[in-house]
């Protein structure tokens, strides 16, 4: 299989800040790559370089075999970009927005119009087609934005945090649209800070932090890298977390993770269901009230924590964010737990 995107040794500095510090990645034609990382990790910078909006200081990037600097115009004809902000003209109607972008992709007027009609239908916007985008909800704007980036049937689609700021229902429907597109053979590079989103949509993942790739592989490979299983326990009183962790220490193969806000304890274990029984026995006769207990495979949050030493959301300072343009509103849920 050929690669639709090839990135080698990408470096980008903004003043004193190094946003990208030698990023390498490839995306096979027709596959979905999830580019993961906390705020300010450099995800948006990678997307901006690949979509010809920004020039790298070093390294090379190709999209559908074309150099993003030398053949920028040809690259632009083959890609679609949906940025972090729904870039639709709010004074134009949904239909006018799509027709305009279609014309700028050099479709004929007739093509642009028929394509606009098709996409409005596909993204459930037909009813709102003749209303100015100003009147659209956040979810509708995002859908219109994605529709606009698809109007010329791009071979490669860049989705930069496509569900940030959406309510859970809009997020779910957006996931369905994206999965649908991927099923249709479009190569997609998706950035997200929601590990669940990448797990659900991406064939392969690249995790970056502070401008460097810190892990790559399929979701299963990444999870295997972290290894084992997690014994997860929810207690009635957050004050009991420490005691529970102490009691269960003999079972743990690694540091337990305590979360006071959810009153949850997560313990890497290796003994399978036997550990479950042992855990309950160890807690017998203590004041710890067990509300919920179970075994699960590691999720990407565990992966992230293991790889970076910090939880996805509370990663970097505002200085980094400003420098990379990777600024994102606070997630509306579904982030790292």
């Amino acid at each position, binding site marked *: 299989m050929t690669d639709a995107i090839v990135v080698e040794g990408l470096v980008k500095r903004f003043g004193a800040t190094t946003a990208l510090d030698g990023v390498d990645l490839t995306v096979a034609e027709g596959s979905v790559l999830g580019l993961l990382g906390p705020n300010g990790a450099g995800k948006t910078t990678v997307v*901006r370089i690949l*979509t*010809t*909006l*920004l020039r790298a200081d070093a390294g090379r990037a190709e999209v559908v075999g074309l150099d993003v600097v030398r053949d920028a*115009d*040809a690259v*632009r*004809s083959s*890609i679609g*970009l949906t*940025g*972090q*902000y*729904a*870039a*639709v*003209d*709010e*004074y*134009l109607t949904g239909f*006018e927005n799509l027709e*305009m*972008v279609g*014309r*700028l*992709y*050099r479709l004929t007027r007739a093509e642009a119009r028929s394509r606009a009609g098709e996409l409005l239908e596909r993204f459930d916007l037909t009813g709102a087609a003749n209303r*100015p985008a100003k009147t659209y909800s956040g979810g509708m704007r995002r859908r219109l934005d994605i529709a*606009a980036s698809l109007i010329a049937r791009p071979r490669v689609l860049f989705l930069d945090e496509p569900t940030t700021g959406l309510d859970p229902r809009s997020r779910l429907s957006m996931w369905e649209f994206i999965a649908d597109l991927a099923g249709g053979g479009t190569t997609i590079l998706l950035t997200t800070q929601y590990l669940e989103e990448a797990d659900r949509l991406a064939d392969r993942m690249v995790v970056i932090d502070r401008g460097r790739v810190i892990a790559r592989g399929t979701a299963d490979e990444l999870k295997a890298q972290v290894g084992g299983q997690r014994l997860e326990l929810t207690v009635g009183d957050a004050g009991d977390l420490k005691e529970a962790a102490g009691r269960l220490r003999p079972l743990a193969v690694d540091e337990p993770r305590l979360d006071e806000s959810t009153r949850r304890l997560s313990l890497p274990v290796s003994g399978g269901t036997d550990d479950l029984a042992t855990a309950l026995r160890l807690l017998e006769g203590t004041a710890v009230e067990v509300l919920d207990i179970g075994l699960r495979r590691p999720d990407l949050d565990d992966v992230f924590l293991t790889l970076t030493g910090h939880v996805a959301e509370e990663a970097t300072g505002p200085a980094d964010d400003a420098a990379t*343009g990777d*600024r994102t509103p606070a997630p509306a849920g579904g982030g790292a737990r």
Partner: protein
Amino acid sequence: MSSTLAQTLSDSAVITRRNLIKVKRVPDLIVFATLSPIMFVLLFRYVFGGAIQVPGGVSYAEFLLPGIFAQTVVFGSTITGASIAEDLQKGLIDRFRSLPMSRSSVLVGRTVADLGLNVLSIAVMALTGLVVGWRIHTSVLEAIGGFLVLLVFAFGISWLMALVGLLVRTPEVVNNASFIVIFPLTFVANTFVPLETFPPVLRTFAEWNPVSAVVQAARELFGNTVPGVPVPDAWSLQNPVLYTVIWTVVILAVFVPLSVRAYMRTASR
């Protein structure tokens, strides 16, 4: 090469259309482009008209209108900067830059649409002017020339404002910043009063101020000059059309490439 030009024109037409649709849907813009010029004509004609004496016994309306035309179109051009800053803020410039469209067309489409707004403003002002006593005393060709001088100069200012919008990035700041520059530029000129009354330093500035030349050119081409008062000796006002054209050419030669370059390098936030 010719296909590149054709593409630039076609892309620019798409963007111009988009910008004009906005004018249609945002009442504020229409108000700005039509009602405020009417207000200016009426205010100056009737509020100051009695107090301001124009030598030579010419009606103040005759003297005033070309000044109001110039002031309004120059102010009208500042819209270019604010609109571009707004597009930047909303991420639209990023979208446009990711499309295979010609590099200059977002700016061409913007400045041409704003030129269209200025045409509308001038038409409204001219009609209002005719109602309050302004008249054209020259040939049709000269009158058209008068309107062209005003519009072409304003088009130049639009390109200057385009660069400001791309660099400043906040519509409000663009508006405030341009006010600080445009207000003195349009008032320290022969716009509303004859230059004879100015103190010497201010007078020299006003004589070489391109806005004065634009106004002088429009007065001459509409036949609204004051018969008893000689035009100041400054070369700029003796040759107002040529002086205006030189300024416009220089402004365009400097700010078209600078703005296109800034557009290619800019990024939404």
